[in-house]
């Protein structure tokens, strides 16, 4: 039993009360927030933790002996502990606090992969990556002459796992893949992927940006080399994220940014870097956001728990799939299961932006466009879709509002 559940069943009315935005009127209508894939709403305990830091004791961390600084440092570091437990990492030092998923991927590309590839070597990704897991590798390719190999996606939006496996060869030096597709919500068979990578002795990283709010992550049992995510998709603030890396990797990786907080000692002749993870955390970080991320994690683990989250979201998934079937001319891309309730939709010949605007006028917030996954949409021959992404605070009313909005759009363009 947790704060918002009884016998594994979510008390959705109580839960919705701790998300202040949900009581806002949008263009005179009740808000139907279906854009959690872009960023989740923030619960009170996150908002209050950020507020508390600024209101009761703004101070810098890891410097100064005064009480405020000690408090700030201890709250900042408590997030690292929370992340370690959340990911079930073996060692707190394996948790590097970053500014987000994008920062984590770029750091690994530059600091770990770059020195390990040369002309002819290959980096393997999939056709369903977010631009954040494409562009850094293209930059590396252009710099080093290595090749970027892309594992294909099947017609139902799932990864072609056998092709993925066969693309791992002696030339493959690194694998970086999305865990849950942000465009389709399809969940990749991460265990099987790690197994294939390990058998070939290739290090593997997961972009868990979309995964962390839906799935329990256990980096030890998964045995991946790196994993990245962003706080703002986990009910936390923007501007903060996590890079998990195995200690043996982090230890040999050179820092990419020099400055305060990442050194042991500095003289003009020689600087000795701090240990992992401090050597990757130069400069004053977004302290409030880090504290907020800790609360976001505690919100998930203490107030909800993944059993409750999964049960509620799978209920939404099934109900929404059923309800959307009744909308004429609606096509959903990425129907493969297992998936989380994210729907990439095409409504007849109506452009995604027109659908998005008409839904917005009904108070329904969705994302329209390419969802930073242009190659994936190109694979399905469309430039844009309408994406409805559900989270823990959505209910059956939200499904109704979406379906109603889609029907209105059809009427208007009939």
């Amino acid at each position, binding site marked *: 039993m947790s704060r918002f559940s009884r016998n594994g069943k979510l008390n959705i009315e109580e839960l919705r009360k701790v998300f202040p935005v949900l009581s806002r009127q949008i263009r005179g209508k009740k808000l139907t927030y279906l854009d959690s894939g872009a960023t989740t709403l923030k619960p009170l305990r996150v908002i209050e933790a950020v507020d508390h830091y600024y209101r009761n004791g703004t101070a810098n961390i890891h410097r100064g002996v005064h009480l405020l600084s000690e408090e700030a440092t201890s709250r900042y570091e408590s997030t690292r502990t929370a992340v370690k437990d959340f990911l079930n990492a073996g060692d707190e030092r394996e948790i590097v606090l970053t500014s987000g998923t994008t920062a984590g991927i770029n750091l690994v590309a530059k600091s770990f992969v770059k020195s390990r590839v040369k002309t002819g070597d290959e980096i393997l990704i999939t056709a369903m990556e977010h631009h954040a897991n494409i562009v850094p590798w293209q930059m590396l390719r252009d710099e080093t002459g290595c090749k970027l190999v892309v594992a294909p996606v099947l017609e139902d939006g799932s990864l072609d796992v056998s092709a993925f496996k066969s693309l791992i060869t002696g030339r493959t030096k690194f694998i970086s893949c999305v865990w849950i597709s942000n465009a389709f919500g399809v969940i990749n068979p991460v265990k099987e992927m790690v197994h294939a990578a390990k058998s070939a002795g290739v290090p593997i990283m997961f972009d868990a940006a979309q995964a962390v709010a839906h799935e329990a992550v256990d980096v030890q049992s998964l045995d991946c080399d790196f994993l990245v995510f962003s706080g703002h998709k986990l009910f936390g603030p923007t501007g903060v994220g996590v890079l998990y890396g195995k200690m043996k990797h982090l230890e040999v990786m050179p820092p990419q940014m020099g400055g305060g907080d990442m050194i042991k000692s500095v003289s003009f002749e020689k600087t000795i870097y701090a240990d992992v993870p401090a050597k990757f955390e130069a400069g004053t970080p977004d302290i409030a956001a880090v504290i907020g991320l800790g609360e976001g994690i505690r919100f998930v683990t203490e107030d909800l728990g993944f059993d409750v989250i999964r049960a509620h979201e799978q209920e939404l998934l099934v109900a929404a799939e059923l309800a959307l079937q009744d909308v004429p001319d609606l096509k959903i891309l990425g129907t493969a299961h297992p998936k989380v309730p994210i729907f990439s939709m095409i409504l007849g010949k109506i*452009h995604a932006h*027109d659908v998005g*605007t008409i839904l917005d006028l*009904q108070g329904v917030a969705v994302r329209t466009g*390419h969802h930073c996954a242009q190659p994936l949409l190109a694979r399905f021959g469309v430039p844009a879709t309408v994406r409805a992404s559900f989270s823990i605070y959505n209910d059956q009313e939200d499904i109704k509002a979406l379906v109603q909005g889609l029907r209105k759009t059809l*009427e*208007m*363009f009939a």
Partner: protein
Amino acid sequence: MSERASAIYQAVILNHNRSPKGYGVVPLATHEADGFNPICGDKVNVSAIIVKDKFVNLGFTAQSCALCRASASVMMEALADSTLSRAEEFVSQFENMIRGKGVVIKGDAAAFEAMRDYPARAKCVLLPWRTLTEALKNGSTASGVPPGLTSVSTELGE
């Protein structure tokens, strides 16, 4: 249909979207440009034959949302047979209206007035007009240029 939805998607706009004026690439155009909105992927081509500072033929093609397509159609209608200086004046009047800075224009273009309350969509509506401006500046440069390279929309800002 909600009142607000009907303010944006007025019958005039939906009709222009359904049966646009001047749809097609003008053969042997003297002026042409491609416009691209990287945020939503909308693509527009505007082509024209201009003789003695006057439009003799004007056309557009678009892979875009309804607002962009209807806006291009309205532009075709408003500027057919117009002189260049009149066209330039009209383009800037239209843009001012969309940005909520100017008076409302008469005719079908007025249907876009409500867009000033939806800046996120103003880019869609302005894309054909920006592409025309680019075509006038360029002369016939679009042929051979892959669509998307003349990214007019970068000037639109966020």
